[in-house]
């Protein structure tokens, strides 16, 4: 992985693609309710953008996530998921009962917001996991 992978065409082209990939990832995440998509797919797209930068620019890429950062992201994302589960217990409902969260009067909206929170947690977790797998495959032998 030491020499950068790309040529000048790749170097110019990927700069154009990365913002669109990121924006599409956020779209897929938020529109999981209305169209195919949701947390897992958005997480994969986020991870793909980071891996693309890392592949083209090699180890001294200016933008990316470090090894420890990937593990921390994975833990953080799943912790958001579990944390919302415990939060609903604290607010009186059963585990993962989004209706108990104090986010407004309309129950359908509250459940939708709860699901969105869970999906954000899942996205961050999946991004962290795929980056961890990637770093495990290219990393140094320990």
């Amino acid at each position, binding site marked *: 992985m030491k020499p950068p992978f790309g040529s000048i065409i790749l170097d110019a082209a990927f700069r154009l693609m990365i913002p669109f990939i990121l924006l599409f990832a956020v779209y897929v995440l938020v529109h999981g309710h209305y169209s195919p998509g949701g947390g897992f797919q958005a997480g994969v797209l986020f991870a793909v953008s980071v891996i693309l930068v890392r592949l083209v620019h090699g180890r001294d890429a200016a933008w990316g996530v470090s090894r*420890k950062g990937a593990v921390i992201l994975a*833990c953080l994302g*799943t*912790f958001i998921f*579990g944390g919302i589960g*415990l939060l609903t*217990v604290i607010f009186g409902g*059963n*585990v993962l009962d989004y209706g*108990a969260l104090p986010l407004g009067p309309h129950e359908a909206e509250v459940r939708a917001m709860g699901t969105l929170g869970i999906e954000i947690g899942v996205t961050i977790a999946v991004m962290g996991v795929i980056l961890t797998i990637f770093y495990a495959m290219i990393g140094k032998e320990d």
Partner: protein
Amino acid sequence: MTEHTPALIVLVPLVSALLLPILALVSKVLARGWTLVALLGTHAGSVSTLIYVLANGRWHYYLGGWAPPWGIEYVLDPLGAGMATLVSFLALLVAFYSGPYLKDAAPLKTGSFYALFLLVTAGLLGMVVTGDVFNLFVFLEISALATYGLVAMGGHRATVAAFRYLIVGTIGATFYLLGIGYLYAVTGTLNMADLAERIMPLLNSQAVVVAVALILAGFGIKMALFPLHGWLPDTYAYAPAPVTTFISAVMGKVAIYVLYRVFYFILGGTGPVLPALTVLGWAGAVGILAGSLMAIAQRDFWRMLAYSSIAQMGYIAVGLSLGNMMGITGALLHILNHAVVKGGLFMVAGGVFWRTGIRDIPSFIQMSRRMPMSMAVFVAAALSMIGIPPTVGFFSKWYLVLASIEASAWPFVIVIVVSSLLNAVYFFRIIENSYLRFRTAEEDEVAVGGTELPATMLVPMVVLGVAVFMLGVLSGEVVTNIISFALPWGTQ
């Protein structure tokens, strides 16, 4: 807070597992302390659930507030609560035991070990607690993946063993998924109680027969039923000692618990389940003999214990296949026996290896002089495996023999008695080596010095050794107060 205990006993290890790598980067002591506190809380929760369920009947807990059959529910009955107590108790003991192994590991490695360990515990507890067949698959995969990671921590040979275990274990889980796909196709529901009602008129249809075969094959792989046991010796022999202790004590038991749950509680024990139980019984019987014979042939202590595990799972399979009250009682009591005993045996094996580096049986000469407490625990566990009163192993084998006589299954009686003698052969070899043989002069020079184990490794071992005798003496109360409620035609 206490009305959420069924979900909390799964959620607390799960969330702690996710925090642990971050905590370990801060401080290793903090990570170990958090693990122990979380497991202690989980065990306390399981025990309180068991007490509640024995007094009041089944506890239904609706996840997300959605009522079944649309939502996922967690159902605790005495069987599930008892298994949850067993799993969390052994997890707590092994977490204590694993401290010295991680003394000089890097912080991220310590955090990863404890995180994976808590994930295995959360997965197994989820399997035991859930009332939804697909949720069981999810928790099965959680615990299995964490186990593959834990086993691979044992070095380079362990990595190969972990890969082979991964392939075989995933085949097993995929078969189970296909089986519940067939059950979903004919009934349209995934909730266990609802499935039990709806499958009654459909029991002899082709889809259910295929589903039973697939679930038997899938979980037969997971519990190392006789022809499907090939992954087990390598995995147990090469994994690090705390990992082997935990998975040998608990993972096969939860797999056989799932078979028990699916065959007797969901499918009612009739119809296509009867031939499946016959296959289970015969595979178990052959496994008992094959496992015991292969164990005698081993030179490596850990591999011998691994083959002995295959034999002991065969006893539980035979007990479940007999179908009468004594048989299932014997099988459940043997689950308790084997979990405690095999945990103790692997703790002793791991402790001896950690202190002196000895793994092969001929080098165990005079081990009792060097490590008296560990070998005392070994003797207690060996007595229970052979089936000598007043250990709990005697009572479980007694129930199994009585059940076989009652069902007129004379081959099983012969197999159980002969295999007890075979167990005696391979355990007495080690007892003879460690207590009765004397070293020759050159062996005395070669012997590496080793004193007794540190307290944090010794205390769990002694707890298990004492538990063997206590459970044996109290086995009558255990059977009447806990196990008799776990039978499928019980009062609940």
